[in-house]
């Protein structure tokens, strides 16, 4: 595993800021009615996507979730193309035909956000099977939420990855709620990580607000996968800044107690502080990254707003490959 050096820390800090600014802006614009449909925002969970994807290249794959913008950005997808996609424009990553819930870029190894909760498990297993069959050392990261952990695909996917020793890392973003229902109610097992015992693979719960911890744990699991030692479940305890979707009143969120304390944590600020203390980032550098990120997102919005809507004929295109 590559130790966190200055270059990597700067990359992570940039991606964290891009995700936060992207989502805060989508939140603001969505309220104005300019963005159609449903959006599920990733803000608050940045340490997970960036801490994991920091170990990946374009040749590694990820599968994503309803809450996929963060994974896209961390996997290196183009911000302009992403914003245009969410606006439903022809210049979008998916020509405006996927939208927020299906945003993808196979060239970047991003196999799609997924409108079906738990839809990513078997697809990730298939990509892992491909990596193993072609004798590459590439890995697949399957991001999923605590809600998806109760779908049947969780069991079938992880069981297959385990019996075939596939290079797939299953990263659970446990933000405590599946839509409006708490994980403590939905899951008979106290943690998602403990289910790894049933598949005889490593499973670990980490503080998903702590970038350093996510980075280190993911790095070890990815190293094992690259060496052919099979899958791991990593459960990252995190929290979403916004609701399940935009428009969610969030009545279920606690106003005090441990949940509120978690909600008040900001993984980006925590990382900034720690990275500066460890001399992985300078204060000036961090400030500059923050300013550049704001500019990059503003540019992406301008790009999306200025882009054309899809041609009517596009309705019929790309159903079948020729």
């Amino acid at each position, binding site marked *: 595993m590559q130790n966190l050096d200055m270059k990597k820390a700067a990359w992570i800090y940039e991606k964290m800021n891009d995700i936060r600014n992207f989502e805060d802006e989508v939140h603001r614009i969505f309220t104005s009615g300019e963005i159609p449909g449903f959006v599920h925002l990733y803000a608050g969970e940045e340490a997970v996507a960036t801490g994991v994807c920091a170990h990946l290249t374009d040749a590694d*794959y990820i599968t994503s979730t309803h809450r996929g913008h963060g994974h896209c950005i961390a996997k290196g997808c183009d911000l302009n193309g992403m914003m245009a996609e969410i606006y439903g424009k022809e210049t979008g990553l*998916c020509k405006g035909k*996927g939208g927020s819930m*299906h945003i993808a870029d*196979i060239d970047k190894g991003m196999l799609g956000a997924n409108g*079906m909760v738990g839809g990513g498990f078997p697809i990730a297993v298939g990509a892992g099977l491909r990596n193993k069959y072609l004798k590459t050392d590439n890995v697949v990261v399957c991001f999923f939420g605590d809600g998806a952990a109760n779908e049947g*695909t969780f069991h*079938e*996917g992880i069981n297959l990855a385990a019996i075939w020793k596939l290079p797939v890392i299953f990263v659970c973003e446990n933000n405590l709620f599946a839509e409006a229902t708490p994980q403590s109610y939905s899951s008979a097992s106290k943690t998602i990580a403990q289910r790894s015992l049933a598949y005889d693979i490593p499973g670990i719960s980490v503080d998903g607000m702590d970038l350093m911890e996510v980075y280190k744990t993911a790095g070890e699991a990815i190293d094992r996968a690259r060496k052919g030692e099979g899958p791991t479940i990593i459960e990252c305890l995190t929290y979403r800044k916004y609701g399940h979707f935009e428009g969610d009143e969030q009545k279920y969120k606690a106003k005090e107690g441990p949940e509120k304390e978690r909600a008040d944590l900001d993984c980006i600020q925590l990382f900034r502080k720690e990275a500066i203390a460890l001399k992985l980032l300078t204060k000036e550098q961090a400030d500059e990254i923050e300013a550049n990120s704001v500019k990059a997102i503003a540019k992406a919005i301008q790009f999306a707003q200025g882009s054309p809507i899809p041609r009517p004929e596009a309705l019929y295109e790309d159903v079948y490959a020729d």
Partner: protein
Amino acid sequence: MTRKITFMKAINEAMDQSMERDERVILLGEDVAGGATIEHLGNEGAWGGVFGVTKGLVEKYGRERVIDTPISEMGYMGAAVGAAATGLRPVPELMFNDFIGFCFDTLLAQGSKMRYMFGGKAKIPLTVRTCHGAGASAAAQHSGSYYGLLGSIPGIKVVVPSNPYDAKGLLNAAIEDDNIVMFFEDKTLYGIKEEVPEEYYTVEIGKAKVKKAGSDLTIVTIGKMLYVALEVAEKLEADGVDVEVIDLVTVAPWDQETIINSVKKTGRLIIIDEANPHNNTATDISSVVADKAFDYLDGPIKCICAPNTPVPFASNLEQLYIPNADKVFDLADELIADLKKS
């Protein structure tokens, strides 16, 4: 060179030749080899599929390419979609088409939509082999015919061969195709024998076949129903009625041109489909023909399908369930009454 082989052997040969031609082709499914990890078997398969359709392939290509899966349709079908999206050409076997419910999401919401949702960037070269059809006393959960259900989904192609020659050529074409192709095998046809070329060839997907030319009545069939139509055609021939029999071959996208041209010639249409009678391929063909060739019709379009029931177990009931020549003959008689009078 041609020689007579069974429907089952023709399918096996297509997989064999496709695997030989392209290393990206892998097979996976429940007991497609059988006996994985059992030491005394090694690369010898215990089964070669529940009917033996994949027999001999694991011995030739090894367990890396002929992969036994646990009984996990959702898991391995989704994995096949993922492997196809990332560059392999998987050929999973869904043991019976009635198991589609377990893995429907992977085809309905994932694989079939990826290319469209991802703006044309994805290709899903996936061929799903599955078996269908009543007549084997397998009862309600192992005997249905769900090609129409799959054929209604954009992004999926569906083929239903009726004979060994088409089975081999269509399966090769399906594996070469860069889309999801559902390949339906009627389990009661596995034993039929016919002349099939030894060499590799393909049969065009999307093209119906005129099996018998005629001028008075068109009968369109799917899969095994071809033989029902041929029987009816022979009987009617004795009465001087000239029947055109068309094997649909591909359920999605079905060949509108061939069927409409035939109806323009004959003015009468019967469609035989072993699926349940509503929202199926027969009703779809009927609606399109009524729309596009209404002025050419000399009588109502007749759909002969299975009844709106699950497949029963008792043999006498099962035989009543499957469309047969008597039923078609009665209807045909009605349709061509004017012809016989003249």
